Structure formats: structure tokens, C-alpha cells
């Protein structure tokens, strides 16, 4: 089946563009009818004033509904005049039911504030439960930041590690927070923070991500089949938004942990709100103590994050927001006599966003973004300095229009244009060895229509056009998705999309501190792929969601740095890479319990992914290391009492792929007395490690802090039964025959943290 889609890039203009324009221009005229009203407004958190993204607004007793957009704004059009009852809901909040009377052609503004659900020991009984369902598009998953902070985590709560628990998302190892989504590597997922691209969202050598859970409002993962408003990556999109800041009162958080400590303050001011969060490692005392008795302990190590946001409510129709992020890691490591290693890397992002409502029909968003990633390893080895500096500068402007002209159509269109500059400079012994500067203009434009021919069906068709000046590439990406709800609690979904990627990432799964981005260019075509997704979403009983999704995706014209290239100096750009293809398929099942004293989810993935590169593995397809056939995650939260709650995570996955070493030999070395000792292997990654499983448990005690606020004391145990899962096998060639030893992953690891909310 994989071979059917490995074709040269076809031009879909003829088969897609004309029908799509027909939808856009002909359907509104046919469907627009008289005496239809509309309702629009913002949905917010009553206690903080934060807008709620993708909250649900449903007309009671019907399947007519919508969700708020990424600014928390909703619009329902084509409503009948007269009495209607609207239900506003969001997971973790008490629903609001509002009955209104609409006049013909009336356009009503209704802003709604939802109250977070108070804890009750008894299960909540909710009427009109069908309206509590959360509309979720195909291939989409959402993680609540509250859950991120509650989940047992290695040393500290982490956004990416929480996302790794979702079906369809895999982790490479306990030491990596990288996201491997539906068979794709970390570079196939676009990471956005307040609409700004983040190029290396990792701290502490890739151990966890740069996203401070205190500063984050919403985390949404488009695992596949993502809509036309996003682009630039083959696989998926992780869309993260900073908090706006509490608009009701000033609040703050201070948290002390074993690895780092955090502080956050947010609050209103005369014209809006603000939020400022800082996180810094607190390992220095521990490192100092270790240095007194142990060799090869870093001389210095820290990481730091700063997130900030300022919101300006100009008037009822115009809002401005300014958002920034700065984070970095700096480590000084003496490896021995006359060897010193320093690594300094990090990210800076900034964005300015203007949202405007034109009437009550048209919502617009204009964003200016700036993003910088830098990576500067330096090693001083026996009097010889070896340095490299990699920088990515990405400045862009995005503009989106969201228009709901009637009940049947929601039109979106947008433009994203920018300039990206990648520089790579290296020197050996103060002698420049590499000096490369790639600068490319890029631009994307999209148009998308969501058409509801009846109350049970939605068809979303979109087209995205991408251009990239480095290599002079122009690519078209059609997207289409269908949803049919034969019953209110059952949704059948299907999607297809073509995706193009102009960037590739040089990385190592074991250590992301040296990540370097490269682009297409002369002789280096962009990667592209097709994705097919089928899904069923059901709400079989009160408080339960069931989702089943199957996918198949292709990857063509993959380009990545040749791992066997010893030196880049003087090598033609196109010869730096190896070229290949791949595919992935799978089925994901998510069963979620959203209410009650015990809640959580079970996620299961059955899947497979393969790659093939010329002159590698005898030109055969092989599974990358992170390929696991079966992957199960069970997440459970239990409210023990008013003050205590428990969380558990159990993960089970069949073994990762590895290469079995079959033989060995010695080959004389023409330059040294010691011979080469190459090993002989058969098929790359044709063997499987033992299964991986791990149980993490955590307990949280809620209390007060000297009457000045509330507090949480968390104790967590990672790998509670100390399963020594295997990372890879290592060979010792000082022995003859060589001995093989398993390199283990994390052992049992307790962590403590104390958090104060004021």
C-alpha cells in the first residue's frame, strides 16, 4: 500500500481548486436565507478572566454548535428568530445555560464567564449532559494545564512529558522530552507559543521542555490531518498559549522543587492584564556539594525561563497583546585534565497580536512574531579550542480572518510571511572551518471553508499555498475533512491533507543540546507527505469519551544530515544530506473519564513507522529506534479527601527497535597500531528491546500558607517498582569477545515540591 503513494509531486490545482472555489462562491448565495440571527462573544473563566480556548457553545436540543477560537471568541450564525437555549461548557467548568429571544436578523453579543467546578466528594450529576460534550476535531488532542501539574513527573511538571502520554505520541526515552507523533520525528511537529515558532523547546539536555506550566493556558496538539491554517511541518502542530493574566485580581505562585523553582505573578491593571513567570534551576548547591567528593561534576549549570504577557483591552472590539519568552541553558563541564566543555543554548521569542471584531461577523487577528534560537557549544581540548555557533532568526507577520456569514459556512483565510536566517559558524583551533548563512523568504496563504449542509454534517475544505525562496519552491497543500454525527453522541470523521516541510533538524535523540536546523536549497527539495485519517468519537455514557482514530501517512523527499559525513568544509550543500522516504500507520484508542472522584484516561496505540535512505541498510525500509508496535498509557486521578489527591501513571510499550550485532572482526589501521574493530550487523533495527513499563505515583496535599494563600505539597515516585527499562545496548571492546551491557533508563526516583498560591 505504501508504494501507491510514492509518486512525483502532482499538481492538485485542477482537482481541488475549482471545486473549492465553487463551495466558497456559490454556496453562500444559495444557502443564505432571510430572518436568521446570530450570537457571538467571548467565553472566559469567571475567577480569572482568562479567555477559554475551544470552549463549546451548543444550541440545546440540537447538534448546532461551535467552539471558541484561539482568542476565546465564538460565533453562531443562521439561528432562527425566537427563543433558543444556549449551553456554554468547558471541561473542568460548570456549564452555563442561557435562554434568549432573538429577533429576525438580530446580531447579539453575549459574553459568558464560566465558573471552575468546585470539588465535591460526590459525583456531579449534570442535566442536559449531551451538551457537555467537547467538540473535538479529527486528529486533535488537548491537555489541561491543571493535569500537567498533577501528573507525576521526572523532577518537575512538564508540558511535553504530559503530551507524550497521549495516544499517537511516543517518547524516545526517559531522558528525552522530544515528541514523536504518529511516526514522525521531533522536527515534524511545529511548536508554537502564542503563534510564534519555537525551534528548540528543550532544557537540561532535552530532559524536559521549555514551557513553564505556571505560564501556560492551553496546550493543543494536532496529531495529524491538521487544517489549512497551519503549515510548515510534515506531521503535526503543538499550539501553546501563554496565560493572559488574571483580569479579576492579582494572584501569584511560588514553587520550590528538587531541580528548579518557579514564581509567577498575574493580575489586572487599568487597561487589561499582565502575567510574568520565571523558572530557574536550583542545582548549584547540590553541584557544589558533589564537587567536593566527586570528579567530573559540572563547574556551573543553570537553566532559566522567563514568560511574560501584557494585554491591552483597547475597546470592546480591539485587543492588543504583547508576549515574550526567554530561556537558556548554560553548562560548564570539566571532563578531565586540560578538557573543558561549555554549552550555551536557548530561545527568545516575542509577539505582538491585534485582534479585532468587525461587526459581529468577522474576527481578525494580526500578529508580528520574532523568534531566535541559538546554540553555542565550545570545547577546549588539550589547548585546542573547538567552537560552533548556530543561530536561527525568524521574523514574520501573520494575518487571519474568521468570517461566519451564515449557519452553513465558516470561512477562514490567512497569510503568513516572514524571513528566516540560519547561520552556522565553526572553528577548530581558532581556524574558521565552517561559515554558512542561509536566508530565505517564506510566505503561505490559505483559504478554508467549513460547510454544514445539514445539522449533522460538516465538511471543511482548505487550500494552502507555500513559497520558500531558498531553492525557489512553490507548493500547494490541499486539505479536506468530513464529520458526520448520525447521533448527538457519535461523530464519524475523515480527513486528508498534503503537507510540505522546508526545514530539517540535525539532532541526536540522546541529547538535544546541539540541535541545528537546515533548510532546502539548490538541489535539496522540500519534504512532502500525504495523511489519511479516519475517526470515530463517541460519548457512550455520562462522563465518558471514547475516541478511535486510524491514520496512514507518507513521507517523501526526506532530507537529513548524512550521519557519516565526517567534515562539512568544502562540501556542496546538497551533498551534506542523505535522502529518503518513509511511512507510518496506526490505530489509536482513547477512553476518557472526565467526571467524578476518579477520572483520567486510557490511551492505546497500535502503530508502525518505517524509513529508507539511499545507501543505508542496503536501501531497505527499517523502523527507527522509537518505533513501538503497542503503546498503552493509563492516567488516573483520585480525590482521596478534601485535602489529599493521588495521581498515577502506568505506561507499557513493546520494545523499541535496535540493531543486533551478529559478528565482529579486526581490520588493520594504516595510521595507528590499534586495529579497527568493526562489528557486523544484518538488518538495521530488526530486533526489539524488551518491553518497557513503568509506574509513577504522586500524592498532593492541599493546605494553606500561614493564612496568606493556599499551598500544595507534592511527593512523587517515578518508576515506583524500579523497573530497569533498557535504553540501548553498549559494547565493551576491551574484552574479547566483546561484552554487551544494557544501558538502563531511569531508576526509582522520588521527587518533592512545595507550591504556594497567593
Amino acid at each position, binding site marked *: 500500500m505504501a508504494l501507491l503513494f510514492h509518486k512525483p509531486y502532482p499538481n492538485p490545482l485542477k482537482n481541488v481548486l475549482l471545486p473549492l472555489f465553487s463551495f466558497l462562491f456559490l454556496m453562500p448565495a444559495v444557502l443564505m436565507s432571510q430572518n436568521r440571527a446570530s450570537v457571538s462573544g467571548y467565553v472566559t473563566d469567571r475567577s480569572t478572566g482568562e479567555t477559554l480556548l475551544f470552549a463549546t457553545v451548543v444550541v440545546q436540543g440540537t447538534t448546532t454548535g461551535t467552539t471558541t477560537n484561539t482568542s476565546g471568541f465564538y460565533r453562531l450564525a443562521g439561528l432562527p428568530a425566537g427563543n433558543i437555549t444556549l449551553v456554554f461548557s468547558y471541561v473542568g467548568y460548570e456549564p452555563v445555560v442561557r435562554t434568549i429571544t432573538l429577533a429576525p436578523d438580530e446580531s447579539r453579543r453575549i459574553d459568558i464567564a464560566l465558573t471552575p467546578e468546585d470539588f465535591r466528594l460526590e459525583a456531579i450529576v449534570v442535566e442536559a449532559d449531551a451538551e457537555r460534550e467537547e467538540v473535538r476535531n479529527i486528529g486533535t488532542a488537548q491537555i489541561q494545564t491543571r493535569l500537567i501539574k498533577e501528573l507525576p513527573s521526572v523532577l518537575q511538571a512538564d508540558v511535553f512529558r504530559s503530551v507524550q502520554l497521549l495516544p499517537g505520541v511516543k517518547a524516545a526515552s526517559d531522558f528525552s522530552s522530544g515528541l514523536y507523533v504518529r511516526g514522525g520525528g521531533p522536527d515534524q511537529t511545529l511548536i508554537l507559543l502564542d503563534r510564534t515558532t519555537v525551534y528548540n523547546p528543550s532544557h537540561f539536555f532535552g530532559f524536559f521542555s521549555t514551557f513553564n506550566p505556571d505560564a501556560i493556558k492551553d496546550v493543543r496538539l494536532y496529531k495529524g490531518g491538521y487544517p489549512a491554517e497551519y503549515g510548515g511541518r510534515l506531521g503535526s502542530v503543538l499550539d501553546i498559549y501563554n496565560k493572559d493574566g488574571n483580569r479579576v485580581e492579582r494572584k501569584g505562585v511560588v514553587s520550590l522543587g528538587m531541580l528548579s523553582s518557579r514564581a509567577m505573578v498575574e493580575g489586572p491593571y487599568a487597561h487589561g492584564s499582565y502575567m510574568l513567570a520565571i523558572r530557574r534551576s536550583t542545582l548549584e548547591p547540590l553541584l557544589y556539594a558533589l564537587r567536593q567528593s566527586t570528579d567530573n561534576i559540572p563547574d556551573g549549570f543553570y537553566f532559566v525561563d522567563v514568560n511574560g504577557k501584557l494585554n491591552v483591552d483597547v475597546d470592546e472590539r480591539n485587543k492588543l497583546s504583547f508576549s515574550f519568552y526567554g530561556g537558556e541553558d548554560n553548562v560548564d563541564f570539566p571532563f578531565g585534565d586540560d578538557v573543558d566543555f561549555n554549552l550555551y543554548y536557548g530561545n527568545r521569542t516575542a509577539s505582538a497580536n491585534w485582534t479585532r471584531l468587525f461587526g459581529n461577523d468577522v474576527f481578525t487577528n494580526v500578529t508580528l512574531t520574532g523568534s531566535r534560537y541559538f546554540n553555542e557549544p565550545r570545547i577546549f581540548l588539550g589547548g585546542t579550542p573547538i567552537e560552533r555557533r548556530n543561530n536561527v532568526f525568524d521574523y514574520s507577520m501573520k494575518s487571519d480572518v474568521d468570517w461566519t456569514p451564515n449557519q452553513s459556512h465558516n470561512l477562514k483565510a490567512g497569510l503568513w510571511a516572514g524571513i528566516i536566517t540560519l547561520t552556522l559558524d565553526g572553528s577548530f583551533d581558532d581556524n574558521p572551518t565552517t561559515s554558512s548563512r542561509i536566508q530565505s523568504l517564506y510566505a503561505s496563504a490559505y483559504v478554508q471553508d467549513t460547510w454544514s449542509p445539514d445539522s449533522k454534517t460538516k465538511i471543511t475544505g482548505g487550500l494552502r499555498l507555500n513559497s520558500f525562496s531558498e531553492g525557489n519552491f512553490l507548493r500547494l497543500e490541499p486539505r479536506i475533512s468530513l464529520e458526520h454525527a448520525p447521533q448527538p453522541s457519535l461523530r464519524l470523521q475523515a480527513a486528508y491533507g498534503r503537507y510540505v516541510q522546508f526545514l530539517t533538524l540535525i539532532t541526536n535523540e540522546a541529547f538535544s543540546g546541539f540541535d541545528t536546523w537546515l533548510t532546502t536549497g539548490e538541489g535539496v527539495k522540500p519534504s512532502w507527505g500525504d495523511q489519511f485519517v479516519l475517526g470515530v468519537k463517541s460519548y457512550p455514557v455520562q462522563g465518558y469519551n471514547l475516541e478511535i482514530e486510524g491514520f496512514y501517512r507518507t513521507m517523501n523527499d526526506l532530507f537529513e544530515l548524512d550521519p557519516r559525513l565526517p567534515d562539512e568544509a568544502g562540501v556542496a550543500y546538497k551533498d551534506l544530506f542523505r535522502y529518503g522516504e518513509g511511512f507510518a500507520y496506526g490505530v489509536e484508542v482513547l477512553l476518557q473519564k472526565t467526571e467524578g472522584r476518579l477520572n483520567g484516561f486510557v490511551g492505546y496505540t497500535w502503530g508502525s513507522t518505517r524509513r529508507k535512505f539511499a545507501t543505508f541498510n542496503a536501501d531497505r525500509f527499517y523502523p527507527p529506534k522509537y518505533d513501538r508496535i503497542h503503546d498503552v498509557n493509563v492516567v488516573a486521578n483520585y480525590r482521596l479527601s478534601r485535602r489529599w489527591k493521588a495521581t498515577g501513571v502506568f505506561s507499557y510499550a513493546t520494545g523499541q527497535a535496535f540493531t543486533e550485532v551478529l559478528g565482529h572482526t579486526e581490520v588493520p589501521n594504516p595510521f595507528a597500531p590499534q586495529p579497527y574493530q*568493526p562489528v557486523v550487523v544484518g538488518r538495521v533495527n530488526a530486533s526489539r528491546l524488551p518491553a518497557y513499563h513503568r509506574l509513577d505515583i504522586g500524592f498532593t496535599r492541599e493546605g494553606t500558607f500561614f493564612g496568606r494563600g493556599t499551598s500544595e505539597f507534592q511527593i512523587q515516585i517515578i518508576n515506583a517498582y524500579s523497573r530497569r527499562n533498557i535504553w540501548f545496548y553498549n559494547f565493551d571492546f576491551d574484552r574479547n*569477545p566483546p561484552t554487551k551491557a544494557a544501558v538502563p533508563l531511569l531508576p526509582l526516583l522520588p521527587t518533592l515540591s512545595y507550591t504556594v498560591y497567593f
Partner: protein
Amino acid sequence: MRSFLFLITLLLTACDTYTQDGYREQYVVAATLVAGETFPVITCSRTVPINQPYKSEETAVRDAVIRVIELDATGNPVDVIPFTERNPGSYSTTDPAVVKPLTRYRLEVDIPGAARRITGTTFVPDTFRVRTLNNTTLPYQGSDQFRANLSASEYPGRQTFYVITTTALDTTLGLTPLYAGLPRDQRSDAVVTTSGIINAENYVALADGSIELKYPWLALAYYGRNRITFNAIDDNLYDFIRSASVQLGGSTTSPGEIENVISRLDGALGYFGSVARASTEVTVIR
């Protein structure tokens, strides 16, 4: 319907045909021609399973018929240099012929009982020399470094690839700080240090085609007299060395993902490579 679902499940879980293959013994051949020198020893041996010790006396291939054939520009044989077995698995020649630079040679190895002939070809890099050296004696990590001017070494279609080796000619003055931490039983390994592959484009190219090369301190393991050898390597050694150096890790491959080394030999592992060399001597003082 149930039968259909069962069949699909069975197919999906059972249809993975990407299975591990078993160990297969292979021949291993190694030879490095050096421009301007007589023909070297050629070794012929076998691989062993990973769980067995490698003993050179047991893996040596005996009674092989080995020839190196000089080819002209059109690929026709010009001269044949025969090799005979001197020690188990080790073959040498008494032919006084010298390896010619910018010349192609073909290796042919016939092993009794082998299914086919082992062959390989190499194109010998052009000779070059160390034209000048800024200083023959310098203090270790002093204000100045050894700088050599090398004449050009031609290789058709690409830049020159170097491997630089340093051989301590006098170990009595002790190890430099970078190597001083080596265990005693490993200090003899540091008598010869070798770099990885270094592209000529790293260095300043002068108008006359020569390059100015600064010699890094990290390559010096011993104080005292050292011989620095610059080796310009052919494509076969380039492929073998670059693949062998990352076979078990490093670079961008995931831990445990291993590929065979690149052997530009038909029918065997190893290499039939060639180099051109130039050396100079320096003295490093404390």
C-alpha cells in the same frame, strides 16, 4: 463480520516481514598502498560471531591467491604484482615496483573454496611534501603553534582529505596534560595519535595551490621528539574510516542503531585503499 475483523487483526500483527537475519561469515581484506613506496602487506581474514573471541591465528585465511594489477587510464592492465603468503593470513610481495601516484590499481583475491573472487580498485592520491615548517621546537601550548605549508595533493573530482598522525619518537619526557590521566596500561596506545578525516577546505589555500595548516596541540601526547605525518587518503579509506568511526554511536544516529561499515570491496569487508604521505619532525618542550 467477526471473522473479517479477526483476519484483519491477524494480518496486521503478523505481516511484519522485517525480521532479523542470522550471522553469516564474511571475508575481511585490508591493504593500503602508499604512493612512492613498495607494495604493502595485504591481510586476509574472516569475521567471527559476536559471542566468540577474535583470534587472528584462527581467522587468518590461508592459501589465497592475491594480485594487484596496475591499470592504465582506460582500465587495461599494465603490470601485475603477485603476492605470496609469508605468515598466516598475511601476504606480501618481493616485486620491487613502487606505488605510483595518480594511478589506478585493482586487487584480486581468490580464496580456495570461496564462491567468487574478491575485487577492489583504488586511485592513488598525488604525492606532496611539507614545504616549510615555521618552527621545529616549541613550548607546549605556548604563544605560537606549529604551522606547516603543504604542497598540493591532487585527487580528481574533489578536495583532498587528510588524516594526520603523530608518532612519539621519544617517550621519556612524559605525557602532555591532556593524556596524563591515561591508565598506565593504555599509555602505549598514545604513542601514536591519529585524527579523524580533515578536509583540505578547512585550511587557507594559497595562490600556488599549497595549504597553510596549523597543527593542534591536542594531537600531541608526549613531550619531546614527535613525527607528524600528513596522509592524503583515497575514496576507499575515506568511506571506510568515516563509517567505522560512527558505527557504534555519535553523530545523529540513535543509540543502538548500527549500520555496517562501508567497504568498497566486492565480496569482502575491509578496504583496498591508498594514501600519499609527507612527514616532518618537531620537538615539544614543557
